[in-house]
């Protein structure tokens, strides 16, 4: 790690928080590793901050010329229930089944 002096964008706390939001359980000894990697990614992207964007309009989509893609309100065939449930880890004939949620 050659850039110890550079301020980290991502802290260990951030890693734990993001893992929690993503429902991932991370062993404590992995946190440093992910911190390093995430920091690298964000650091790379942060180079964009150096670009002068004065007078450039904000973009909301990479396909800047494409707009207004609609479909008409017309019925299409749905899947059969059997097909819809096929890949579910747990299901019965009609429903997906998930651990109890109240």
């Amino acid at each position, binding site marked *: 790690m050659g850039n110890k002096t550079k301020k980290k964008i991502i802290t260990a706390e951030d890693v734990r928080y993001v893992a929690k939001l993503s429902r991932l359980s991370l062993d404590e000894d992995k946190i440093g590793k992910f911190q390093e990697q995430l920091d690298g990614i964000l650091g790379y992207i942060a180079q964009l901050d150096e670009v002068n964007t004065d007078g450039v309009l904000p973009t909301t989509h990479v396909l800047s010329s494409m707009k207004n893609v609609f479909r008409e309100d017309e019925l299409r065939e749905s899947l059969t229930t059997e097909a*819809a449930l096929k890949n579910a880890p747990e299901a019965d004939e009609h429903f997906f089944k998930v651990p109890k949620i109240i």
Partner: protein
Amino acid sequence: MNTKKSKYETVVGLEVHVQLSTKTKIFCGCANGFGADPNTQVCPVCLGQPGSLPVLNRTAFESSIKVALAINCDVQEIVKFDRKNYYYPDLPKNYQISQFDMPIAYDGHLTVPGEDGSSRDIGITRAHLEEDAGKLIHDEKKPFSYVDLNRTGTPLLEIVSEPDIQSPGEAYQYLVILKHIIKYLDVSDCNMEEGSLRCDANISLRKRGDKELGSKVEIKNLNSFKAVRDALLYEEERQEDILSEGGRIEQETRLWDEKRGITSSMRSKEGAQDYRYFPDPDLVPFEVRSGLVETIRENLPELPVKKIERFAEQYKLDKKDIEVLVSERPIADFFEKVNTECNNPKVVSNWIQGEVMMHLKDKATNIEGLGLSAKALAVIIKLASGGTISGLAAKDVLNTHIDTGDDPEVIIKEQGLEQVSDEGELDVIVNKVIEVNEKSANDYRNGKVNALGFLVGQVMRESRGKANPKLAGDMLKKKLERK
């Protein structure tokens, strides 16, 4: 309400979710309908299968613009969709497609009448379009929950009010007005029992005159407008009790318990939700051209407030009558069609509020389902007011017409309901009645005016209801006064 004179004032904001009644879902061609067998209206898009792509339903978009205009919002020129990320088993993609910073519309208002006859404008912060989630079904005896994803992807328009509402009663009125408008636009069933209209409320109290808002409590599980009002009344009192004893209101979400009539804390998930909104790369932005907005605006139906004003002006009806007639757009339209044919507003209004509504109730149907044309009702009304049939016979004709669909004129002929309005024909009967009822006849001659009613009744009986009662009365009077 006991808080009117209290040193606190109530601040309420409402978030209303309206399911749009399009034929298909918002981003796929699956049917959008309530009550189908579980997981029969699903496809790769609404199940969030990898590789599937959402495409926006044009009708859902335009219906949203309709609502936005009707509640006086500014429709935005550029609209985009964002992903709202959270984990819950009713949300197959683990994000909901919603709108964050570029919603369909901002900054509207609704004019809400108060109890004292005045009215106030309640601000509307924004309206945005999103997809509904699926439905979870719990069975207490089982260690798992069932998921039905039919509802996933139902177009939902969320309408967020400003914290402008000052009382539970005003919140109730706001909802009534909003629902009335949306029903008029014919873009949603607005059925709270089926969930096509849902409402969350937030409420805080502050010392009268304070600028800053108090900590607010969000209330969920409100299944009717009455529940909204009752829950807010309860919460208003609960918060006032805490504050006046020097306590503090905790910012939290509480659930309304309809049976017990109380709210209780929904164990707050530690930390605020972090939805990490970001633009949905699967959906390109939408540019709303002013031409489209103007076309939609021009084609908006006449909304309730305007209709009420016009009915008062054009038909000179009472406020009460107008309220009933405009309560539903199809009824108002029906009234106008009937009246165009027979031009007798008060009588048409009475017929619709009386007989027609009774039939609607009996048959549990709406005006389209009743099988009564405006023309037929107008014919019946004209025949009754012109004296061809009696008022009573007219009701019979209407019943028969609704049951059989036969022409009113045919029914009258077949059942011989035509009133006898011919003096010659009635003469025999009138003479006979005077003869048989000598005592009453003499009573009348001696100044007992009431006796006439009895004699008219006898003429009606003798003619089996067909005599024109007014004519019968005139003839009786003439004959009795002559001697």
